[in-house]
């Protein structure tokens, strides 16, 4: 006789996606870790409770070196949920699992909808798959973002009518617009978009990032403090200027 399951209840399986932070160290690790410590020290709690993926693609390291690196992370209470781009030979027992297919969300987005510049170049867009292009999304937050709150919107732009508190964060796949004082953290182009920008009416930010490039408050020209400012990316450098 075949065995019959007596319990008719099925198991619920749900999919869920999280926005993970991807760390891509470079050699020598000592220097890179020093920079990581610097970033972590100045952006209190940034890595706390956030899924972190370690990307070791093209890094010429062996298993011992990877193990050492992982130990450095656990010392810093950064828990790595997976490793990307590792040759199977360097992965060992007790290490986080290898992750595959974790393309940056931008790959998908770009595949579906040809890049944002299209809006400025209507002539070019004819050659692209116009019919599959979806309008870029945006959300508007009509109140201040309070300390401890996060607004995460990988699909497009975030506009806040109000201030972003110290200890609060706004993470957008597109640009970030703050019609108030930016005291917390703002990350634009968070899923890979170098043309995203950050705008705010009054600059007091703790941390800024565009397309994964970070800038801390101390790295900013004092002349920008308290001013209306826009930030954008030129190569690997975040540029900033006051808005009149």
């Amino acid at each position, binding site marked *: 006789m075949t065995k019959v399951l007596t319990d008719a209840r099925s198991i619920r399986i749900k999919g869920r996606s999280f926005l993970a932070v991807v760390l891509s160290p470079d050699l020598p690790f000592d220097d890179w870790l020093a920079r990581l410590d610097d970033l972590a020290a100045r952006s209190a709690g940034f890595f706390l409770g956030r899924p972190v993926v370690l990307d070791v693609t093209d890094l010429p390291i062996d298993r011992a070196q990877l193990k050492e690196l992982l130990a450095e992370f656990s010392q810093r209470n950064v828990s790595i949920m997976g490793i990307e781009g590792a040759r199977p030979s360097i992965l060992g027992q007790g290490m986080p699992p290898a992750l595959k297919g974790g393309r940056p969300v931008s790959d998908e987005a770009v595949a579906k909808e040809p890049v944002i510049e299209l809006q400025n170049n209507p002539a070019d867009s004819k050659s692209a798959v116009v019919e599959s292009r979806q309008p870029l999304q945006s959300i508007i937050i009509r109140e201040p973002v*309070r300390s401890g709150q996060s607004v995460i919107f990988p699909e497009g732009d975030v506009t806040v009518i109000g201030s972003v508190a110290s*200890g609060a964060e706004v993470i957008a796949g597109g640009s970030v617009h703050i019609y108030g004082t930016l*005291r917390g953290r703002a990350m634009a182009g968070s899923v890979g978009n170098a043309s995203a920008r950050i705008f705010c009416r009054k600059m007091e930010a703790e941390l800024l990032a565009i397309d994964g490039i970070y800038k801390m408050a101390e790295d900013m020209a004092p002349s920008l403090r308290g001013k209306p400012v826009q930030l954008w990316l030129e190569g690997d450098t975040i540029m900033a200027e006051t808005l009149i």
Partner: protein
Amino acid sequence: MGKVIVVTSGKGGVGKTTSSAALGAALAHKGDRVVIVDFDVGLRNLDLVMGAERRVVYDLVNVIQGEAKLSQALIRDKRLETLFLLPASQTRDKDALTPEGVETVITELKRVFDWVICDSPAGIERGATLAMRHADIAVVVTNPEVSSVRDSDRIIGLLDAKTAKAERGERIEKHLLLTRYDSNRAERGDMLKVDDVLEILSIPLIGIIPESMDVLRASNIGAPVTLADARSAPAMAYFDAARRLAGEVLPITIPGEKRGIFGKIFGRKAA
């Protein structure tokens, strides 16, 4: 139906209990029926500030667990006959409060009293969220310093997310009460400025309570400062705040800034 006020702050020791007692007494002073509920289970304090510690028989937890009737647990103030206290338990732990129990008690109190004032414990965990749960109005108590302001900001975020009103899509009325304001320290520049606090928290101000020995003196004799010495500076500031809570519009003065323009210029230069 009465209005439910939560007195909350995030950070500890900023003056929630002092303010709950002072505002409650000020509202009762003009004849409103007021009950102050101590939500700080395990650390009860309000009965001391109100001078009722020897009269506590039953407490909030007893009522919630069905061991006492609400009328048995309520303590009437010896000085004001419209002022009541519902004490917290000193022996139980925080988990003794259940959301359903709290709801039942608050609903019952709202029927009898004009004002139900909930003195919240510090923190942003269960105790604080239970205290704010059924509030119509929040008094956010803040000291003019960075960590207190940041915690208040977090609490405001919770008020807009975790209260029954917020979950029904309504907005809870929020007011800022700046306490322990020290004009000497403000002059020296080692305290946040009132304008800066207001700009960061962006909720309306209902009062600035000066740092004062009168508060300590009042708590030593077991009386809300508004009853101990109604003409002291903190008491007057609390009386005005209570009137603003009840809907009156009054100008707010910053303690210690009554000097003329000359003094101001001098102060700025020295800073």
